């Protein structure tokens, strides 16, 4: 039973993109296996390790899907079918600069972060927005 749990958590850890997290999980998963074989009561400690290491960043695809959903609810977008991963807010979606500010603010709310002015000014396309969100550890 423990072995299946370990395999399952390892598979889940492999799906996490960040290499740092993966290596930490790998170390955590291998070492306690020996401990469990030695003494069964250690299982609780092993659980704690697994929970601790389960922090996963945001997936690029998820971020895109959420931004897409947000944009398709925005009535100024000329045509929801124009929303692609590389769409430019002004050139492809027909938004002006004021709308762009609003979209960036909405993205802030969606991922519960605050984007500083100088970064917010550089976000002009879906691609840039996704890139920025993925690079933010606080985004969720």
């Amino acid at each position, binding site marked *: 039973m423990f072995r299946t749990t370990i395999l399952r958590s390892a598979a889940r850890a492999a799906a996490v993109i960040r290499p740092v997290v993966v290596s930490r999980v790998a170390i955590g998963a291998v070492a306690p296996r020996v401990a469990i074989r030695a003494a069964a009561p250690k299982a609780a400690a092993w659980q704690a390790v697994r929970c601790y290491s389960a922090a996963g960043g945001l997936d690029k695809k998820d971020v895109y899907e959420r931004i897409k959903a947000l944009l398709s609810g925005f009535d100024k977008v000329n045509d929801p079918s124009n929303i692609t991963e590389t769409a430019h807010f002004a050139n492809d979606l027909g938004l*002006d*600069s*004021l709308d762009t*500010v*609003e979209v*960036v*603010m909405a993205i802030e*709310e969606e991922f519960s972060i605050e984007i500083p*002015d100088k970064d*917010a*000014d550089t976000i002009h396309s879906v691609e840039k927005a996704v890139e920025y969100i993925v690079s933010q550890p606080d985004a969720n």
Partner: protein
Amino acid sequence: MALQAYRHLLRAARIAFEGDVRVLDAARQSIRQGFRDKATLPASDPSIPPAIQHAEEVASFLRANLVQGKKEEGDMYKLRIHKDTERGDNDTIKLGNQDIKMDGKTCCSS
């Protein structure tokens, strides 16, 4: 410039009217309208810098000088004072009944 003012204003409204969807929507609508009205002016129009300044001032007012009150039982109102709310240090209260000159700079320090 104008875009930054727009962002500051929207952000200030979000802080000031947090949790009050109806007022927040109305505030956003009026901010949007205000900027749209002037959006077609040429960049060199003399009325633009004062308008931007006005927007920035409104933003800082919303952020610092406005608190939401919620009615509790009876006549009690609970104020939501957040980290940006301007707070005086109440130093004037220690001076008793003296005449206090408020010029905004040197009050209470001498």
